[in-house]
């Protein structure tokens, strides 16, 4: 089986890996690069737990072949904090108790970051529709939305 050699940027650092054509980016992140923060909830692009940001756009890493990452910049949950300094979204999720089991949380945080990078002042409705692709079964989304809106306010004020 031919392996493809891929060079990409992951969380700001140059990264290289070998992969087979049918492996998804999620497969390689988790199994090849040990970045298990992105989760596999469905493998069909319906739950968002595998969300990563590619060239500034949030995508499902289960819907991308690993080989398609060649030459692109990828941000995962592992890159959201700067060392031990949490991103305001992460801090607000903790303060608002916006996670219960925490499984959907990495995907939600990545998707929320993509939202705030693009729209620093989203309304509740805009936030809900933006995050519709991130399924959460524990929280009913209430505290998640509050945390995102609060983080947006902090980022605007800072």
């Amino acid at each position, binding site marked *: 089986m031919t392996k493809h050699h891929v060079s990409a940027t992951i969380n700001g650092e140059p990264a290289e890996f070998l992969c087979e054509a049918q492996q998804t980016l999620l497969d390689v992140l988790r199994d090849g690069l040990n970045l298990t923060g992105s989760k596999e909830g469905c493998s069909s692009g319906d739950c968002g737990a595998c969300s990563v940001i590619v060239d500034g756009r949030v995508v499902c890493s289960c819907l991308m072949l690993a080989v398609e990452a060649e030459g692109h910049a990828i941000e*995962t949950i592992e890159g959201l904090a700067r060392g031990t300094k949490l991103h305001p979204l992460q801090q607000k*999720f903790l303060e608002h108790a916006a996670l219960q089991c925490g499984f959907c949380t990495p995907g939600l945080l990545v998707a929320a970051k993509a939202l705030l990078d693009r729209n620093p002042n989203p309304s509740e409705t805009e936030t809900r529709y933006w995050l519709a692709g991130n399924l959460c079964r524990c929280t009913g989304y209430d505290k998640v939305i509050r945390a995102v809106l609060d983080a947006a306010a902090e980022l605007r004020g800072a």
Partner: protein
Amino acid sequence: MNDIVQQFKWVGTRPIRPDGVPKVTGRALYGADLTMPGMLIGAILRSPHAHARIRSIDTSKAAALPGVKAVVTSADFPERKFEYVGPERVAVNFWHMTRNVMAREKVLYEGHALAAVAAISKAVADEALALIEVDYEVLPHVIDVEAAMKPDAPLLFPDMITRGVDPAPTKPSNISKRIEYKLGDLEAGFAAADEIVEMEFKTAAVHQAYIEPHGCVARFDADGQGEVWSSSQGHFVVRALTAQLLGMKIGDLRVYPAEIGGGFGGKTVVYVEPVATMLARKSGCPVKIVMSREDVFRASGPTSGSAMRVKIGVKKDGKIVAADGEFKYQAGAFPGSPVMNGCMCAFSPYDIPNARTVGYDVVCNRPKAAAYRAPGSPISAFAVESVLDVLAQKLGMDPLQMRLKNAARAGTQMLYGPKLSHNGYAETIEAILNHPGYKTPLKKNQGRGVASGYWFNGGGESSATVHVNEDGTVVVATGSPDIGGTRASMAIMAAETLGIDYDKVRPIVADTASVGYTHVTGGSRVTFATGIAVVEATKKVINDLCARAAMTWKVDVEGVIWENGHARPASSNVGDFEPLSLKEIAAKRALTGGPIGAEAGVNPGGVAPGFATQFCDVEVDPETGKVTVLRYVAAQDVGRAIHPSYVEGQIQGGVAQGIGWALNEEYIYSAKGRLDNPGFLDYRIPVASDLPMIEAVLVEVPNPGHPYGAKGVGEVNICPPMAAIANAIDRAVGRRLTELPMSPPKVLAAIDSGTETKAR
């Protein structure tokens, strides 16, 4: 809320959970996240048929495939005795369980496991599965509960004679059990009623739909010692069931709790752990098995679908005089639907002198039902709370006032035997009645619905260990997996009891060899029972700390008290000693007797049940039948909210699941008995844009059975939403929906039919 904050330093506050940072940084390890050196990937062969006899399984080609290290079938698992063990409500039968984990004579549902392989990669494992040759004799199947009860229905078990019927039936059927509860004189009760409503209801099977699929890694060493890393709601139960199914000594198996990505009851049983352990035993290598999303829907246990009939009679003034319910629940492929719970909970919010519930546990060709948040109660609540609403409308009475008039209180005789032990229900009704939103006017095609619900909650065995570190910080170890913030609650209770800062307490979830037996995280029992264990262990530590102080001061231990994190003399008579902090006592521990720690094992009584009352406002699009939830307010008696944010979270989560159950979630089967929608695309759980903010109203009637007054909070909140929404739709467009889910085609058909459902 204010008096709580003044009374306690930590109970009732909202500190950040101690396991939060790993979860928001992606560092926390869930069931699929662990790898071990030499690990193989396990894959499970599943039946494509809803019902078939297994004539033969030939695994030889699979075993011969390069890269395959082990193959298992039911032949590898010891046979188990056919008997129901444990309390009736939660009885297990290992003869059934081993067959659910790996089929023997028959496959009983599409997705039923019948063989498994372990190989060097997923690709090789999948290829090996394709090489397993199974000779099936396909049999007719049955899924709908009423169809399964018919005398000519295909039988899943040729010798199943209904239990609970006297004299026992002579012919076998798919009805595993009949239950009945009776109180008073039903005939006289209905005869005295001014208004009677009798209606029939149907609900579809729904799944807990946790986002994390089941996953585990198992290892088995040459000395017969096994280790399992598993995402579950109870690693002690995983240990017990896996050991049973493999014929192992419990002490030879050690289970580590991975973080768990949701369970809601569905992860209190085992599917992959026994298979992975057996594959590890046969291959000599660690084996990881993670279920695919499709397999989770096809092969793990959803809750029951049902057919129900409820009849309630009331006086003109709203007093309920008689209530009768018949509940038929799908058990799935093996007995054990939660119909008993459904029968017990159905009328429990109310003081009804004459009542009866009859339940049927019916097997059918779909996966074996597993617990789902207050199992059984949401289903019967849909029927009862709908009928009450129809009656309230007939009487022209506010539905909340009607509930208040009949509210069960401490001392009320319950249908299933005991007297209600706690107050709290009436307070939830009052909380909604007094809520400013309850009186806000609505527009055309909008309606407001109310409903209540009841759940027993639970006690059960829990253990906790508390150790004081050399610097006065504290470790609290329990055996309760944290699915909703309970580590924070344990730390709060320990900190409160000790009188030290929350940040100085480190709560962990310990594995089965490192803490005493602890039952599942479920049944709304962790803050209650495990909390009691933590407090008792903490009190033992406090006794020890006082003894160390007494030794230091050379006084009798009776002369030392613990206050605000310090040992101090009980009075000036004892002596004029400076208080000793936990830190100071810890520093001197070697001189006063050595390490400071204690364990407690409990099985507490004093369980307080859960009551919930909720209202929701909906808008119905009369041209499409689409229902939008505009507003949702959920009141619940929580006893005392140890960590209010996580209590609110439970309420919001249960309501969201209830809304999905009400509007769009259902198992859809093809004519061949195959699941048509085994994925999140067509199994439609609520997404963020479907829901409004969900307002949780915490009513606190403290539970004297818990050191801080806590009652279980996790489950009862899912009981009211389905009826609350049905009642709201009725108020909005004058149509009564009696079948779940109330999806747009059903609502539109009801609107277009021009007639309201006639109640008898």
